[in-house]
């Protein structure tokens, strides 16, 4: 220790230190406050973005929760319907006649002028009437009350999205059209019930008729397929890697590979599905089955990683205890470790499935953005999924689809929140402190 020179001469430096520190303190504390300010600002920005996101979706999706309907007294004219050819009846003429009773000044026999009145009704109105008559042919000759959806423009007028104050030339409805709507309204024919069609109908070109039934069922089949494939394979892979795999190059490669796969862009999985499932194996386009298989490939790494974490959390003492009473390694895993890890595995799986439910890009590439007006009856039928339906609607030019897109997003978010809530509930209920 020859290099120590403890004898420093001169004044005691301590007091100068204290003084210097005191002088700089205010400045230094100010710096820290600035740093904290940046932090608070950053968090405020992130949170306000979330609020704006949800807020704009709710305000724009809110109108789509109701739908303007028109109640009409329709005389099912025996002259228009041939009982032997019920579907071929002139149902739009009956509706026109019914509407005409409100507008004595309009010549309903002239097709063009009748059209100015009947376009208040949705194109789905005559289909609704037709279905009702086909179901109960005894209605022929009767006068029935039927409530049919109004066309999109009038729906928007009723909800105030088309404003009367707008100059006529910039408005999508002219003064005469608005006046006719007001006549119906004054007669008490207009109602605005809950838009159940949003859930119970399939897609349509007309916003007032479009619903999510097909997309929800398509998503259901795709998720079911995804679960049936990725859950067993993911658990099998995780158990092997965590409990049985020798520590060698191969298991290293598998490990790196799984981590990388989890970060491959989703659209690349779409390319894989398009080239392999559709191109090489000749599987059907737009089918939820293929969509589910594609999503399974993406969910697989998530489930493997979550399962391995859950298996790791089971303490070695459990394994040793079971091995100690003479269980085989597989009996240890399947009788003791796996059941204890199950809540963690299920939580990870649900979160993985929630991600898969929101995934869009790969489904676009395998054609799940087709325009399909009926709900699929099985996993082989062409269908859309919730996120691709949102994409289709977002791309549609009709004004009514804007609020329907937001409403569809709210439906999707509801599903996602429910799934995540289940995951959180599971995690908390079965959380175990070792």
């Amino acid at each position: 220790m020859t290099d120590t020179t403890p004898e420093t001469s001169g004044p005691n430096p301590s007091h100068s230190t204290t003084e210097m520190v005191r002088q700089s303190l205010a400045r230094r504390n100010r710096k820290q406050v600035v740093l904290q300010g940046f932090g608070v600002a950053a968090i405020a920005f992130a949170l306000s973005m979330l609020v704006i996101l949800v807020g704009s979706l709710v305000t724009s999706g809110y109108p789509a929760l109701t739908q303007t309907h028109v109640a009409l007294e329709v005389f099912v004219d025996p002259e228009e319907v041939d009982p032997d050819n019920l579907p071929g009846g002139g149902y739009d003429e009956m509706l026109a006649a019914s509407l005409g009773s409100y507008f004595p000044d309009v010549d309903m026999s002239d097709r063009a002028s009748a059209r100015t009145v009947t376009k208040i009704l949705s194109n789905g109105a005559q289909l609704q009437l037709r279905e009702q008559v086909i179901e109960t042919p005894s209605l022929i000759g009767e006068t029935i009350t039927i409530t049919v959806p109004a066309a999109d423009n009038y729906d928007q007028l009723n909800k105030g999205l088309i404003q009367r104050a707008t100059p006529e030339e910039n408005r999508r409805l002219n003064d005469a059209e608005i006046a006719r709507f007001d006549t119906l309204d004054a007669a008490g024919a207009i109602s605005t019930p809950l838009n159940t069609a949003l859930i119970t109908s399939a897609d349509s070109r007309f916003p007032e008729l479009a619903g999510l039934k097909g997309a929800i069922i398509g998503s259901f089949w795709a998720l079911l397929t995804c679960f049936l494939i990725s859950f067993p394979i993911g658990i099998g892979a995780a158990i092997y890697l965590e409990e049985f795999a020798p520590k060698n190059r191969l298991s290293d490669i598998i490990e790196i590979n799984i981590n990388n796969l989890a970060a491959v862009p989703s659209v690349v999985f779409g390319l894989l599905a398009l080239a392999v499932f559709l191109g090489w194996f000749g599987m059907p386009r737009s089918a939820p089955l293929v969509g589910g298989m594609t999503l399974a490939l993406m969910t697989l790494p998530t489930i493997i990683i979550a399962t391995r974490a859950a298996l790791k959390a089971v303490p070695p003492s459990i394994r040793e205890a079971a091995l100690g009473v003479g269980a085989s390694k597989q009996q240890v895993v399947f009788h003791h470790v796996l059941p204890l890890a199950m809540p963690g595995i299920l939580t990870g799986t649900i979160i993985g499935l929630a991600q898969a439910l929101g995934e869009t890009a790969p489904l676009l590439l395998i054609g799940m953005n087709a325009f399909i007006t009926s709900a699929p009856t099985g996993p082989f039928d062409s269908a859309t999924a919730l996120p691709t339906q949102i994409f289709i609607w977002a791309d549609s030019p009709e004004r009514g689809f804007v609020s329907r897109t937001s409403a569809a997003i709210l439906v999707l978010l509801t599903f996602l929140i429910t799934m995540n809530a289940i995951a959180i509930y599971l995690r908390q209920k079965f959380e175990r402190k070792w």
Partner: protein
Amino acid sequence: MVLSAFLLLLGATLLAYFLNRKAAISIRAGGTQLHSLESFHGLFAALSVLVPVLAGILIWLVLRGSAVDWFLLQSLPEGTFDGLDSGASQLIVAEIKSIAGGRVFGTPDPWKTEAAERLLRYNEIADWAMVALVAISAAVLLWFARSTVGAQFRARQSAERIVLGLMMFCATAAIFVTIGIVFALTFETIKFFQIVPFTEFLFGTSWEPQIPIREDQVAAEGAFGAVPVFLGTIVISTVALLVAVPVGLMSAIYLNEFAPHRLRSAVKPVLEILAGVPTVVYGFFAVLTVAPAIRQFAATIGVDVAPNTALAAGSVMGVMLIPFISSFADDALSAVPRSLRDGALALGATRGEMMLNVLFPAAIPGIVGGVLLAVSRAIGETMIVVMAAGLIAKMTINPLDSVTAVTVQIVTLLIGDTSFDNPKTLSAFALGMMLFLATLFINIFALRIVRKYREIYD
């Protein structure tokens, strides 16, 4: 038919289990000591029937479509496809299939109707063949499994070997997926580079992939220089990172060191919500709210901007990446040992100085790893740019202009009917290849950094 094959298999499996179990029980009842428990004899039998037959059914289902198509093509009259490109011949096959499916439009040529009937027959033969094969193979395996039962047979070891094999197969499934991606992309990319020279794709500055598919279509001559597409992706990703990195890092710093405990436990899950929102929702948010807001703001200060600016897509993508970066940075900061914090504080550092001079630099490797993963997310992100960015490839780095991106081109080129032999479709795969390679390298690099970083402080 498929269902009945599965039911048949299920029945055979259960039968195998109970037969063997019963046989083992009767051996034991005869007073002989068994090597394995009876249920393992049953399990072994069940697995030996289930696994091979199930694998057979799945392979059959995968290959059936292609096989039937091949037979159908062979049965068509000579010269049907002479002078037709693959798009047109696919149309013919599709028409035959729709006739077979009962959807007839107009009066099809009689040879098509005949072909449709043949197709139906082939399908029927295939179905019956499958059921028959399942029945036969299940019976053979059942007989084999039954013959194994004996006092000395190590049923537990054998059954566990099968289970272990199954689990190994599952573990390698992930590798098969990667191999599948590499093969699919390489195969189509090579086809693309046979049509378009590699150098033009990589260095060309003009991207106009809309070439005529049919003779009578009028469209621009195709050009496949991908530089402007790459540039667009870079511009949008840069905007995204300029939003996400500072906001993410600052929130992580605040939450990690300064935030009161209750605020931290409230804010973290809320930030996670941002990460859980599907990207299609962000895309719509960009179109519905952010892009109009930017346009309006630009108008008030008198700047003319494109309707779908890189700024709108990029900033919304940035919001999506905030929780990603902040949780990575938070983890990295928390991984710095407490002794370093104590060391700095004991020297008289303020908490801010401790954070900026000691904790943050010590956590940088982990943070860089997280930021790199965010970069790879940004360039691979699809829905936000598909909905909010442009379609036209421009050589510009102006974020107020409309630019396109690699993923946008992939999706727009492949939406709708696709055939695999024109450069328009194939170029999407070439772009996909570039995207895959770029993200792969970034990911491997980032994961390595993160892993190394964890090792330092473990």
